[in-house]
């Protein structure tokens, strides 16, 4: 066992292997590893930015939510007030209308009553004249006279 010419072959072969490995296998592999490292760093940076953005947006959202809630509260309050006022108005209107209707009805009743009384008076007058003329036409005794008066009065009463 000693050193022979294969030492030269070993050196050359190792050199070639080193060159081939770096060119066809580990060169590309290491560039891929480098790319992955870059990729991860980039992702981390993006994630950081995104988180900051998200935080900002969240704060904005919260602020706008608060504002909206306040506005909604105000609107509800306003609506409540408006509705209460309207209800009052409606009740007032109804009351006024009812009072007017009652008044009108009373007036109508009064009118009708006085109209009826007038008609009655006019008819009673006419009848009295008719009765009187009948009595004057027939000069009768007291008894028949009484009979006649009763009779006419009865007629009048039936008419009335």
């Amino acid at each position, binding site marked *: 066992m000693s050193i*022979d010419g294969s030492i030269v072959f*070993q050196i050359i072969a*190792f050199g070639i*292997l080193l060159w081939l490995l770096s060119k*066809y296998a580990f060169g590309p592999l290491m560039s891929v*590893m480098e790319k*992955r490292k870059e990729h991860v760093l980039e992702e981390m940076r993006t994630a950081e930015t995104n988180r900051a953005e998200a935080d900002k947006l969240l704060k904005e959202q919260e602020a706008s939510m608060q504002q909206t809630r306040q506005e909604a509260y105000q609107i509800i309050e306003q609506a409540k007030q408006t509705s209460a006022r309207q209800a009052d108005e409606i009740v007032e209107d109804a009351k006024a209308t009812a009072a007017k209707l009652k008044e009108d009805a009373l007036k109508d009743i009064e009118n009708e009553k006085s109209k009826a009384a007038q008609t009655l008076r006019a008819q009673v007058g006419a009848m009295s004249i008719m009765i009187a003329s009948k009595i004057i036409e027939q000069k009768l005794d007291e008894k028949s006279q009484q009979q006649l008066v009763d009779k006419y009065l009865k007629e009048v009463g039936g008419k009335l």
Partner: protein
Amino acid sequence: MHESPMIELFGIPFDLSNLIMITITCLVVFLIAVLGTRRLSVDNPGKMQNFLEWVVEFIHNMIASTMDMKQGKSFIMLGITLIMYIFVANMLGLPFALSLHFYEAPTFFGIPISPDLYAEAAHAKDVSLLFWKSPTASMSATMGLALIVIVMVHYLGVTRNTKNYFKHYIDPVPAFFPLHIIEKVSQFLTLGLRLFGNIYAGEVLIGVILMTASAGVLAGIGGMIPLIVWQAFSIFVGTIQAFVFTILTMVYISQSIAKDH
């Protein structure tokens, strides 16, 4: 005992099994890496991609533990190739060994294999040539790797860290110069020989267990247990040695390019 099939090219002897196994190891490593990175995905990596990314992370952390990552980034590829190559090389010899007996002296594309052995042997088939083994079980392969690393370490020291590099040889006093030289030489030798020794010893012991086990049926059954135990331990040793070689490489590099000593 198994012999290495040797061939002679340009007057230099080459271990043919080394040439074959180094090529196979490179192919296996390359196939694993290429198949694992075929469908790369940024956000949905597959199992193999995850595994290879784990390897990259592992080497990244290893380098980060020895030096500044700004300088260390360029050594990630070296670390990955080293650990994958040595690990695969260590594992290849474990499942089986392939030794061939030829009836005639074999040739490799017309070049005679180990002509001396066949000239000495009475019968050609007495010669056992070991073709499949861990390439890291040969000194040529491990010292080749160590040579790459040590040359690189010193080159980096001279070019990137000139003043400190030369100053540290006479640190703290010039009398320490020989010690530093011994340290550098032993760094080179231990880096290669540690790996070789561990893997070679592992394969030798597997060979010994197999030889014992082939003595008879009972020995065969009895030999199963130490074989399983030793192979499991060899997996462990192979993994550890791949790790040790890689991290020592990174430590040596970081020492030679360190600005302050």
